[in-house]
């Protein structure tokens, strides 16, 4: 009988704790409460049955309570686990980008299997928004009520713009946003951290490199008709103007288009020496094929968004010789061996892509910030620690990660690559090119 009373006390204690930390959905609470009660009951019955092993199971929660008093926690963090959340297009038209969330998941599996972060396991809640802003907002609400400590690698410009305000109001950090839109990092929002290079940085880097190294005189831009494409376009125009290079064609496509031959025709008519392509993989590939079929072969510069080996498969010969830029190491490099192994372990049927690697890296950065927090897993301390990450090379990126209270870009350097059709590989063409090397227009 004595045993049963102790147990009841334990169960209540856990329940109170749960309410404080999660403070969220009532349904979840009742569910958890009944689960706790049921477990308690089961254990009680078991102990009355006289199992000797029971004594050890009862003492553990007490031990946990003692060390918990020394540590401090914000929502989503505890002695045993840290809850993170992400939202991305797991299904829908651009479900290929769901690979980012999968990369994150693979990394946290790796972390959990190798001891966690200071013995705390990471729990990642992955929600599907199909790249739709309204669904992203709904997911943000769900993540807040699920009591996440931070959001990590949420994908998309429009989706983040729609959902972030909700997370930020709930004082939840939004880390490693998976978009290169400057709108999310300039001006700095204390709780939000970028990671990928911005499309502005990319536009400047690629354009200047093309002018300096390949001496191009005229440029045509093929771009996605939204904030992503337009940011790249503006940067290209600015950088080109600096060197008096002409932008002779601006061809916008819409994400739902099926016919790219008209765009190719328009580009051919303007006949630029170099064509910059700021779009997602499938349309970019169809556009490249369209130009090739018209017998038009300009130099091509492709955004890192589509600078993935998958383009060799999609565009075939039309991608050969194209330039692109990157912020991640090559997929077949030694640096990504752990990624490849763990991604395969987590998703045996999905090939590891650069997108998945970028998700892996998103997770590495937030995990590093969490590790720096030690036992003070509060939002305030997390932000403080993140802002102190300087020239950190611990993530599988090709350039260091840096944050300060005034700079939340994360990655501030890229390098140029070229597509080699024979080996079907991207080959590095330059060293790292940094923000400060391409001028002041970025801030």
């Amino acid at each position, binding site marked *: 009988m004595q045993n049963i009373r102790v147990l009841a006390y334990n169960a209540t204690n856990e329940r109170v704790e749960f309410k404080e930390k999660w403070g969220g959905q009532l349904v979840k609470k009742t569910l958890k409460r009944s689960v706790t009660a049921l477990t308690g009951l089961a254990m009680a019955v078991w102990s009355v049955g006289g199992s000797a092993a029971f004594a050890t199971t009862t003492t553990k929660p007490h031990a946990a309570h003692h060390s918990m008093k020394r540590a401090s926690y914000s929502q989503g963090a505890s002695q045993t686990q840290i809850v993170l959340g992400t939202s991305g297009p797991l*299904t*829908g*038209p651009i*479900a*290929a980008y*769901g*690979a980012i969330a999968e990369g994150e998941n693979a990394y946290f599996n790796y972390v959990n299997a190798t001891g966690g972060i200071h013995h705390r396991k990471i729990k990642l809640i992955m929600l599907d928004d199909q790249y739709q802003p309204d669904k992203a907002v709904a997911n943000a609400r769900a993540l807040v009520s699920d009591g996440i400590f931070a959001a990590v690698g949420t994908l998309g410009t429009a989706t983040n713009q729609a959902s972030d305000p909700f997370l930020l109001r709930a004082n939840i950090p939004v880390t490693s946003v998976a978009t290169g839109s400057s709108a999310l990092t300039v001006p700095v929002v204390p709780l939000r951290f970028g990671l990928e290079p911005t499309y502005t940085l990319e536009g400047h880097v690629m354009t200047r490199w093309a002018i300096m190294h390949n001496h191009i005189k005229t440029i045509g831009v093929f771009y996605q*008709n939204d904030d992503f494409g337009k940011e790249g376009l503006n940067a290209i125009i600015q950088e080109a103007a600096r060197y008096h290079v002409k932008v002779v064609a601006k*061809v*916008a*496509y*819409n994400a*739902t*288009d*099926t*016919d790219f*031959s*008209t*765009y190719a*025709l*328009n580009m051919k*008519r303007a006949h630029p020496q170099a064509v910059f392509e700021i779009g997602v*993989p*499938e349309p970019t*590939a*169809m556009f490249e094929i369209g130009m090739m*079929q*018209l*017998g038009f072969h300009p130099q091509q510069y492709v955004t890192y968004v589509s600078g993935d080996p*998958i383009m060799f*498969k*999609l565009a*075939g010969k039309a991608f050969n010789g194209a330039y692109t830029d990157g912020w991640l190491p090559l997929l077949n490099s030694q640096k990504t061996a752990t990624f490849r192994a763990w991604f395969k372990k987590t998703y045996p*049927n*999905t*090939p590891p*892509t650069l997108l998945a690697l970028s998700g892996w890296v998103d997770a590495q950065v937030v995990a590093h910030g969490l590790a720096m927090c030690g036992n003070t897993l509060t939002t305030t301390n997390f932000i403080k620690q993140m802002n102190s990450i300087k020239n950190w090379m611990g993530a599988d990126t090709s350039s260091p990660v840096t944050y300060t209270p005034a700079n939340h870009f994360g990655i501030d350097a890229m390098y140029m690559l070229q597509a080699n059709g024979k080996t079907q590989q991207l080959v590095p063409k330059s060293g790292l090119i940094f923000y400060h090397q391409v001028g002041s227009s970025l801030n």
Partner: protein
Amino acid sequence: MLWQTILSGLAVGSLYALSAIGLVLIFKTSNIVNFAQGQMAMLSTFVAFQMLTRWGFPYWLAALASLVFALVFGFFVYIVFLSRLKRAEVLSQIILTLGLYLVFRGVAGVLWGNVPFTMPAAVSTNTVHIGSAVVTWYQLFIMIVTLLLMLVFYAMFRYTKTGLAMRAVSQNQQAARLMGVSLTRIYGATWAVSTALGAIAGLLIAPILFLSPSFMDSVAVKAFAAAVLGGFSSLPGAVLGGLVLGVMESVFGFYISTDLKSTFVFLLIIGILYVRPQGLFGTREVKKV
């Protein structure tokens, strides 16, 4: 350049036309707009893809298997889902096809993932010059297949007994049954055949748009537009609608604005329907008292 824009437009328009034929076929017999048509085509295409690239079968065998799969699949969908609702409102049946759309999409995502694949093409994708314009052999092949399929099914509707039965069923189910037409057989056959048509469309379109669970989506929207433009119950109308749509997009995109080309094209369709509500080839419904 005008000739090139028109030719490119015809090439892309035949994709719309090809997908529209299957839609019109089902609508003609059962008055149902099958929203799952594109997804059923997508699944059939994936069958061929699986055989070709994963199991190493030759192209013709994979394509044949895909067609057989589509025939069975279409019949299965009718028997298992649609026939249960045959006495329900047409609207409920249409909503059911919307549900199927989501189911098929989800299944394909689970089985094959969402990363796009390259699908091998049936014939060469080399280019050929026609006058001053360039087009690929493959695009010409698609145009020819589209026209052939249209002619075959047009003739079937017009001149065969099955065609007559199909028309009868669409006009009056009860009267047709009294005349000895089996509804299950006619509807089942229509679903089977139009799914196979979808498979042909999928097999031909996938090499151009890349194969992924969502690859038929954007074509399907244009196929609906093409069918509406053509009158929705006319096969030549759907094909012409598709071609007109493709050419309008291409010409407008080249000479006026690429930003607004889809917007413009759909405005134009609204304009046409304003003048001819029955579409270009549709027959006006007249109720006689």
